[in-house]
């Protein structure tokens, strides 16, 4: 340290800095505490400091630890299961289940097998999830756009809805709808009645059930043809607009093309569809399409809850489209509807779709809360009743988790495909 540098404090500071640097260098060079073990194995110091050698050693350690953990758990599981007389394989799959399920999309009775019960549960889970997704999406979009409305009171109402849904547990909402609302409804004799079409009581929601007679197949066929025609016309109109600039009223034509053929087919085939309405007979309702209160509460709870989350996603997506886009759209003279449809929404969708799909995954996962209100979904039937009857906890839980994992990963995979196609490409 020469005297050129200066006096007193400055000198002291520099010295402290240099000393700290030296200490840091020293520390960095010092072999780590575990080095002794490896030096003992015949490795040289330079090999020890080679990051590849170290990386290899760490990974070997990790593999050994995980393998030891799995081996330990596996061994204990086999011993414990044998001691308790729990079956080790999937032999129970083809045994008679012996319990009833009140709602099933496929044929099922107490004489069916556990395997059959699994499919009933899985289909019920998928049914609830599909219906909830189909209903939560439009509701969420509506609330999200309402939050951005220039109408102050509408925006506030939407905001209150979103905060209420997002900040209370889904389970609480489900219990409320099921126990405090649906169970508290009057009995079948005092059903809430909307003109005889829809009846609501503590046995569930009753809708008209369509009865398909001979020739009813013509109606879906006509509908499919109508949709195809509408799509074809839309493609034609787009091509023509690109070539000539002449716009077409695609919306009205498509609406007509989709609605008119089924109606024509209905009458042409001699009115093959009839409806059965729920009617009071004795103490209960017969006929109609009965939605059990468990099902109705689960769908209603999932839809209203998830719509709150979707609304926030939609709002964030629309707000993220830069202001300049709106101004540019106004500058070229688009109407407000055209601006939304042609400029804002296509750009917002790119931001909305990824979190939206994760909400769809959440709906599938949250449908497992069915177990709390007794809707026979996969968890209630399989991870509940079947597990309790067979005691095959490991197998049953592995299958249940595997199913949810497969659904989640499938949706994630579809999302990746979407992202690969639609993310903005930087040039």
């Amino acid at each position: 340290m020469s005297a050129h540098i200066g006096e007193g404090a400055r000198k002291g500071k520099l010295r402290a800095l240099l000393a700290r640097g030296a200490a840091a260098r020293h520390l960095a060079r010092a072999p780590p505490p575990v080095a002794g073990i490896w030096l003992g194995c015949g490795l040289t110091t330079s090999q020890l400091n080679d990051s590849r050698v170290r990386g290899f050693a760490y990974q070997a350690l990790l593999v050994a630890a995980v393998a030891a953990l799995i081996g330990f758990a596996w061994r204990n599981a086999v011993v414990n299961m044998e001691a308790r007389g729990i079956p080790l394989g999937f032999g129970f799959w083809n045994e008679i289940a012996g319990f009833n399920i009140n709602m099933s999309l496929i044929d099922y009775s107490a004489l069916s097998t556990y395997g059959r019960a699994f499919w009933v549960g899985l289909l019920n889970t998928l049914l609830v999830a599909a219906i909830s997704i189909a209903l939560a999406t439009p509701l969420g979009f509506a609330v999200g756009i309402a939050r951005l409305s220039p109408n102050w009171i509408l925006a506030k109402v939407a905001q209150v809805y979103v905060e209420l849904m997002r900040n209370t547990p889904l389970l609480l909402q489900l219990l409320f709808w099921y126990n405090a609302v649906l169970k508290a409804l009057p009995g079948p004799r005092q059903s809430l009645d909307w003109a005889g079409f829809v009846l609501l009581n503590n046995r569930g929601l009753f809708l008209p059930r369509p009865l398909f007679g001979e020739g009813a197949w013509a109606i879906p066929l006509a509908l499919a043809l109508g949709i195809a025609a509408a799509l074809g016309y839309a493609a034609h109109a787009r091509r023509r607009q690109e070539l000539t600039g002449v716009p077409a009223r695609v919306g009205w034509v498509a609406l007509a093309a989709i609605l008119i053929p089924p109606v024509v087919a209905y009458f042409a085939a001699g009115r093959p569809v009839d409806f059965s309405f729920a009617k009071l007979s004795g103490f209960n309702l017969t006929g109609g399409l009965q939605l059990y209160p468990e099902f109705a509460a689960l769908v209603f709870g999932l839809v209203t809850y998830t719509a709150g989350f979707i609304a926030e996603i939609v709002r964030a997506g629309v707000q993220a489209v830069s202001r300049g886009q709106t101004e540019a759209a106004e500058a070229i003279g688009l109407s407000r509807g055209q601006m939304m449809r042609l400029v804002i929404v296509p750009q917002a969708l790119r931001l909305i779709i990824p979190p939206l799909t994760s909400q769809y995954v959440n709906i599938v996962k949250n449908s497992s809360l069915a177990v709390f209100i007794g809707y026979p979904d996969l968890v209630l039937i399989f991870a509940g009743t079947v597990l309790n009857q067979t005691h095959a906890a490991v197998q049953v839980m592995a299958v249940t988790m595997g199913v949810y994992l497969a659904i989640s990963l499938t949706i994630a995979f579809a999302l990746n495909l979407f992202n690969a196609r639609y993310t903005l490409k930087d040039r």
Partner: protein
Amino acid sequence: MSAMSPVAYVRTAPEPELSAPLLSRGALAWARANLFSSLASSLVTIGLVALALWFVPPLLAWATVNAVWSAPDGALCRAHQDGACWAFIFQKLGYLGYGSYPVAERWRVNLTGAVGAALIVWLLWPGAPRRAVGAWLFFLAFPIAAFFLLRGSPLLGLPTVDTLLWGGVFVTMLTALVGIVFSLPLGVLLALGRRSQLPIVRLASVVYIEFLRGVPFITVLFMANNMLPLFLPAGWEPDRFLRPLVGIALFSAAYLAEEVRGGLQSLPGGQYEAAMSLGLNYSRMMRLVVLPQALVLVIPGLVNNFIGLFKDTTLVSIVGVTDFLAAMDNAFKDALWSGPTILPTGYAFAALFYFVFCYAMSRYSAGMERRLAAGRRR
């Protein structure tokens, strides 16, 4: 400029300003712009106001003037069916708060809660001094002390309280705390593992994270409850209350890991390079340079995650743990307090409880986000 011209047509004093037209200022203009800007908007406004008038006053009356505020049992509530039965809540407050934890020992719960709350405020208060000390206390010393205080220890002269007696808000808070105290360190490790250069470490982290994020929380609870005893040697019967806590810690770690990973990714690469050029090794680089910055960046995300976790703690009742909601459900079964207004009152109170906590946390998180963004704003 010697003399004024006899014809003066230039004003010598400015005319007083006219106020803006009535329709473009004040409440009226605001209403025109925000409530009645178009025909559709006006219809929506009128409809919503009518709906609110039809819906809100009866609800307020139900909750306040028509409600039964004090009663020895449910008879009075059954007589007043047009109002809430707050007397029921007051009567059950002790049970809803602590479950069956012995009344004489409840100070232990209060003490733990107060210390925990103080530590959380220390950690989350922007600019609080010596946060590192707070972190050590919160993540290491506090759980150990809380365990002995709540469970009891003959050495300290505290009688043991069986976990079967634990319940209510206390258990809800405890499960949520376990979900952050034990899972944040694990989540940080998993996040580092997922960004590691070592392929097997990365693979193991990805498999763990994606597996737990891909299955419902209920199945994790079922697994912890039914499978944990099978995976341990015979005789190691884990406590009935401990099993779901293990499930929560493992489950929440996967979510926190993804949150932390976001923070690690958002840190500029220059920070890593600067740390390496100083000669810091991996653990020092992470401990001294990367994590202190990344973890502060992800505080809003962590809090949002915690809101989800706080709501998810309601699910532990499926494996027989009496959390707040389960305690409420048990309280409903009291025959003395049966009546049509009990359920709506109980659910309304529970909703208020969760709402207050979650909303406060979400406000904190949003405020923190703005604060953190302020530094990066240009």
